[in-house]
């Protein structure tokens, strides 16, 4: 059987998800999951399976451009992946002993609270770069990228240990629920490590593919990756990510931050609604 309408609609929705997911560094799952579960009535397991594929597609599709143009910081990404990968394994190990509604309430509330510092920084183009010292210096957590108007932005990371801890939380969340990791990664790099917004979202985008791949094995083995759902999602996401990457490179840090703040609010509300039994 082949359902034309469903496939075409999911293809279009996924293009939209890919555009936003690649700009904010969260990967498009927050659009794909509620559309599949609420609008289409698809079981949450198949929706998460599709979301994992959507995250990997957004990540790799957009990162190919971000890495080439050096907006993504490869060393910061690799360093933080230590935490996200360990976190994902920890999340998988403790999943049996946790209550997902309670977790979603806690993490959704943290995301809501983190809106405050995010909104207070609205209008910040490039953060005042601290001196490179300590662990950040040892690990080479520094970089520069060129804005579309030719301006070179240099930055140094601060508080790498806090950044690592926040990213570990992101990994645990991905391992437990299959969702929600990207927001904590961007927040860690933005609020703790004080990176320019575009570096934070594109480095998160770079990392979420690896975090999602770490959890992909189990969803694949369970048969949650359904070809009819995943095919249009993957194709749409790849097109959307290519568009989104071009949009981000031409956008200002302030614009990316505003878009991220809106998406963060939506992600927080989705997570809390899910805890209350609305299956998103």
């Amino acid at each position, binding site marked *: 059987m082949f359902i034309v309408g469903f496939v075409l609609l999911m293809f279009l929705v996924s293009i939209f998800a890919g555009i936003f997911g690649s700009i904010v560094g969260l990967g498009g799952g927050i659009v794909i999951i509620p559309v599949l579960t609420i609008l289409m009535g698809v079981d949450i397991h198949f929706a998460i399976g599709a979301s994992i594929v959507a995250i990997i597609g957004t990540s790799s599709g957009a990162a190919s451009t971000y890495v080439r143009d050096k907006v993504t910081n490869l060393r910061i990404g690799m360093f933080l992946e230590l935490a996200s990968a360990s976190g994902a394994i920890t999340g998988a190990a403790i999943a049996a002993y946790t209550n997902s509604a309670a977790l979603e309430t806690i993490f959704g509330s943290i995301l809501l609270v983190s809106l405050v510092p995010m909104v207070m920084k609205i209008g910040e183009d490039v953060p005042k770069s601290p001196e490179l010292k300590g662990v950040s210096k040892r690990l080479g957590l520094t970089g520069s990228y060129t804005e579309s108007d030719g301006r070179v932005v240099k930055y140094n990371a601060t508080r790498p240990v806090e950044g690592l801890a926040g990213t570990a939380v992101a990994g645990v969340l991905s391992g437990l629920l299959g969702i929600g990791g990207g927001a904590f990664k961007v927040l860690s790099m933005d609020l703790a490590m004080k990176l320019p917004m575009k570096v934070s979202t594109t480095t998160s985008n770079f990392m979420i593919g690896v975090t999602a791949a770490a959890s992909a094995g189990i969803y694949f083995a369970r048969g949650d990756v359904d070809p009819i759902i995943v095919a249009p999602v*993957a194709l749409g996401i790849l097109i959307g990510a290519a568009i989104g990457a071009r949009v981000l490179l031409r956008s200002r840090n302030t614009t990316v931050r505003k878009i991220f703040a809106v998406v963060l609010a939506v992600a927080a509300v989705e997570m809390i609604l899910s805890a209350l039994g609305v299956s998103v």
Partner: protein
Amino acid sequence: MNWRDPETMNVVIGRVLRYGVILSGAIILLGTIGLAATSGLSDASGMLTYYPNIVPHDNIDVSLGGLAHGLVAFSAFSWIELGVIVLIATPVSRVVISVFLFAAERDRLYVLITAVVLTLLLFSMLVTPFIPGFHA
């Protein structure tokens, strides 16, 4: 290419990711076209609804043997599955190649960091699904 130059890594990783998504996208597209061609497009019942757990389609065989069989038999499902596996393998291959790229840069610390990430990643993907009590 100058392998000691840090910018080489951006070029190589950018290309690995690009080729990975193009290859997986092409395979998934072929599978989708095959699915439409073999199943027919006339199914107008419930155009926008699809319940994988209520309306059972061909059973998805997730074993490697089942996948190989399906590929040889030109099963559209199996080809889409292969495309998804290529997509999942793309970030993994990016980590593998990073180990060698950091080695070429003579950056021992990051060779170590990346090798640890790769070990954790492969353990999580391939081993934890089979550990009892995990992912419950």
